[in-house]
């Protein structure tokens, strides 16, 4: 958040519409260009979080997976703040960690 956004928020002011426009455009163009529908995207997001949660405990509230576009190239960007590593996962058995009680339930 820039200082200006912060002050806008403080004063209960709406953010400048150009910023809103830019963000909405970037999102809609990422979809237009990738031809991924929102449903597939949501499924992919869920599965990525699932896999990552096997290894580390992530902050689901803060994290996000998004499509970003620049220069006519679209990138998948995952921003997943790590709270802590999963204590019980050993390097060799990481992939098999799914079956453990802590493996698949990041919310718990």
């Amino acid at each position: 958040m820039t200082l200006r956004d912060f002050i806008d928020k403080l004063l209960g002011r709406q953010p400048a519409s150009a910023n809103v426009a830019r963000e909405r455009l970037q999102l809609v163009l990422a979809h237009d260009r990738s031809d991924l529908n929102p449903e597939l995207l949501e499924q992919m997001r869920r599965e990525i979080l699932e896999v990552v949660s096997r290894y580390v405990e992530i902050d689901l509230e803060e994290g996000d997976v998004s499509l970003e576009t620049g220069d006519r190239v679209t990138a998948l960007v995952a921003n997943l703040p790590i709270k802590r590593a999963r204590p019980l996962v050993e390097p060799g058995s990481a992939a098999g960690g799914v079956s453990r009680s802590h493996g698949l339930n990041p919310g718990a």
Partner: protein
Amino acid sequence: MTAPGTRYILICSGKGGVGKTTLTANLGIALARQGVRTAVLDADFGLRNLDLLLGLENRIVFTAQEVLSGSCRLEQALVKHKQEPNLALLPAGNPRMLEWLQPEDMQRIATMLGEQFDVVLIDCPAGIEDGFKNAVAAAQEAIVITTPEVSAVRDADRVIGLLNSHGVKPIQLVLNRVRPKMMANQEMLSVADVTDILALPLLGLVMEDEQVIVSTNRGEPLTLNGAKSPAALAYNNIARRLRGEDVPLMDPAKAGRGLRAKLGRLMTTKIF
């Protein structure tokens, strides 16, 4: 393929009403005045009005339709501009042409025009359907025109994708109806926003300008009489850049500064 040496430039946007025909008319006249033999081809057969903007509507005898069917020669259909003889219009035919017109037909017309003109400007219809596909077949390069609004930019992006897949190159951008004050107040997408998002080199910026409407009323493009209005200047500069001249771009921030922008600048100053 088309004759070498001639440039075939498509003027397109995806969305309607963003300024394609106005740009085609003004750029055509500006190029002609700079000594370039220029043909403007109205490829918007459904909603033709390039003739109106050029003030040539009463001088049309034949159109692209008769040229294609062989019932007249190209010379008979071309309407030469009286004041600017370097410019000629090839008018669009009847909208019913759309029923049989093929991309190859447009290529044939372009090749014919290439024999006597240095630049062929093609005024593209809105949309990305058959009309667009026909028009793009006659082009080698393109100017995409858009306004700083979400819907126009989104449609421009679609068109750029299609131009790329047709191998059209280079593709350059014109940003139309710029309002410096709104940009300064961050209530309009900035020039950088649009060029970053579309990732195209900027060929020119055209201000929102009342004189555009006045000139369409008269059927005399702004570039015809050396008018000094902001849009006239912009169209002339676009013509010069198109010919390879290095003309600096106008800076909208200098054209109008709003309070919010000043505030924005103050607030983002680092304190330590």
